[in-house]
């Protein structure tokens, strides 16, 4: 038994002294966790981007619309001249520019005739997604402006009067059409005058919410967005999501390092010397496994402490996090032993081992969160122990899993560890004791 601890202590010492191994085991996971955490948490969780605004109309309504956009939470507006705006977008400094075309103000006043106010969007072709978002944002505020116009009886009265005047001047319309439109405008005008009188009376009597104004009548849909609180507490910051990923990268690095160390022992002759000592092959592998297990636990604890101290990531349950880390350590210790037999040389095991781990990480959500993956890939991800390790870590960190809920990922991880360990040991015994 003492020999197993001696072997484990030696392996941990070697791992810590290996500068590249130390970087990938301790520093790289922190970089991943902090980087992803920062990316996910930028802007307090709301995606914003800055666009250039060109006011070619320079009227009250155009300035008013730009002010509305400037106050919007989704985008930031920077005013610019047309030429400068085009140049900046072409050079990739900005995603897009928005130009309010000449006549924007005049068109805004004419609700019932003439063309709509015109806006031009100039976009960087490589940023289609942001361009689509921008169109949606402009439509949203354009609709609001249109809706607000209907709520202003004076403005509507004036607009209808202007429309009637324009109708009289327009010689392109047929007589029956002109008569129909004239009747419509006359009725609308009467309606808005009456609506103003009614609104005045209602506001004098009460401010009951059941009384509907014109703006409400004109709404195509009444959509109310209600925030439904999750049954379980969500992560309070993005580092709750990024640190499980970071921990997994640390674990992968430990597994790869120790898997490779078995091959290095074999190729450089130290395995032979160890096997000539009065210890069995089982002792030697147990020592390796113990060192790997302790290192995984150590790396996880260091990263969790860093997350707690610097990024205020507080585990929902210490017991659950201990379960998750232990189960993950068992799984990747077993995987480490199996990785070591994937080739006979250091280069082969290093290459194949990392390839396997990267694919596992890719499909298991170690690189990109599972939610961003296509459904078929999410289903495939179930075969990756990384998925279960992340689920168990998230379950303990912020998903507030019950013991029952923790058992599934933890059991899968432990079974994976035991099976891969046994498979690896069988192959190593076959090779060593030939």
């Amino acid at each position, binding site marked *: 038994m*003492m*020999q197993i601890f*001696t*072997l484990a202590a*030696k392996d941990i*010492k*070697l791992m810590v*002294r*290996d500068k590249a191994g130390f970087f990938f085991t301790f520093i790289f996971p922190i970089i991943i966790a902090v980087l992803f955490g920062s990316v996910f948490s930028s802007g307090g969780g709301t995606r914003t981007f800055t666009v250039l605004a060109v006011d070619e109309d320079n009227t009250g309504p155009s300035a008013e619309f730009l002010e509305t956009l400037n106050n919007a939470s989704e985008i930031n507006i920077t005013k610019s001249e047309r030429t400068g705006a085009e140049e900046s977008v072409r050079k990739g400094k900005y995603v897009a520019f928005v130009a309010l075309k000449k006549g924007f103000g005049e068109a805004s006043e004419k609700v019932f005739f003439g063309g709509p106010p015109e806006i031009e969007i100039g976009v960087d072709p490589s940023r289609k997604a942001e361009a689509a978002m921008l169109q949606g944002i402009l439509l949203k505020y354009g609709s609001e402006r249109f809706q607000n116009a209907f709520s202003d009886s004076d403005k509507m009265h004036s607009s209808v009067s202007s429309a009637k005047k324009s109708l009289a001047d327009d010689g392109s319309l047929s007589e029956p059409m002109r008569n129909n439109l004239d009747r419509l405008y006359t009725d609308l005008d009467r309606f808005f005058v009456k609506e103003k009188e009614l609104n005045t009376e209602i506001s004098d009597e009460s401010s009951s919410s059941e009384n509907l104004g014109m703006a409400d009548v004109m709404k195509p849909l009444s959509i109310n967005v209600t925030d439904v609180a999750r049954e379980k507490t969500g992560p309070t910051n993005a580092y709750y999501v990024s640190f499980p990923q970071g921990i997994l990268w640390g674990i992968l690095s430990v597994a790869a390092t120790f898997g490779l160390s078995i091959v290095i022992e074999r190729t*450089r*002759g*130290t395995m*032979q*010397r*160890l*096997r*000539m*000592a*009065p*210890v*069995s092959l089982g002792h030697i592998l147990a020592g390796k496994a113990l060192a790997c297990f302790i290192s995984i636990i150590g790396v996880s604890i260091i990263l969790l402490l860093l997350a707690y101290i610097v990024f205020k990531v507080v585990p929902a349950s210490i017991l659950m996090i201990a379960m998750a880390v232990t189960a993950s350590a068992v799984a990747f210790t077993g995987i480490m032993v199996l990785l070591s037999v994937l080739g006979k040389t250091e280069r082969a095991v290093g290459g194949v081992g990392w390839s396997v781990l990267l694919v596992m990480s890719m499909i298991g959500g170690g690189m990109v969160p599972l939610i961003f993956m296509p459904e078929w890939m999410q289903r495939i991800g179930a075969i990756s122990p990384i998925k279960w390790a992340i689920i168990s870590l998230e379950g303990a960190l912020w998903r507030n899993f019950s013991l029952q809920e923790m058992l599934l990922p933890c059991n899968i991880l432990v079974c994976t560890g035991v099976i891969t360990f046994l498979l690896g040991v069988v192959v190593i015994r076959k090779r060593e*004791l*030939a």
Partner: protein
Amino acid sequence: MLKLLDVSKSFGEIKAVCNLSLEIKPGEIFGLLGPNGAGKTTTVNMSVGLLKPDSGSIIIGENGSPASAKDRLQIGVATQALAIYEDLSAEENLIFFGKMNGVRGAKLKERVDWALDFVSLDNRRKGKPDEFSGGMKRRLNLACSILHDPDLIFMDEPTVGVDPQTRNTIFEKIKVLNNKGKTIIYITHYMEEAEQLCDRVAVIDNGRVHALDTVDSLIKSHGGKPVVSIRSNGDSESFETDDPLGKLAELKQANVNGRISIDYPNLERVFLNLTGRKLRD
């Protein structure tokens, strides 16, 4: 000290060792001489428990077995490869392998100091092997093999890739160990080394022992007679004779021109005569 009785080992179709029998006496330096692929390393690996023989038996000491961890404590192996950790200091390497061989506490400290002194690395105890010369690494490798004070020490080609000075140092250390009563099994394909060091030598090829005796007896029985050769203008002529100096005088009297040399029988000739090929074939 070590007995191999009718031992055989095959790897698939290849018979590495065939019905090999050897008995190494306590306190001797025993040479296993043969070319690469002769079956020397397979014989050693079976003797130290790394490989199981297909048939036959191996006895360590009185009645021990290489399969037994306890009995393996009597064995030390200076491997051909440098089986040391480059990222551990010389002292850490020795402490680690000492512990793995069951040496602990004050005894371990004492043995580490002795081993470092024995291989003249006591002033580099904190140094790491990646800062050492090839000869220093080879000496540390030897120290790791003998730290637990084994009675039977295998030296598997310990002079591969070392300079003549280190080679002589290693020879001295081997003789010191032997003088302390340690049994040495020296594996080599250099006949000069076997001649210089070994009390008895087994000539091995194709997994079989072709001859086993003292160096002198082997040469006497299988080395043939001394050969006097004359080389002149691209031609050469050789004479086997029991009296090479007499033959030399005879040739001088006859005013024979050319370069004259005398080749006395050695282990190379023994190997050639026994197997029909040279040691370096």
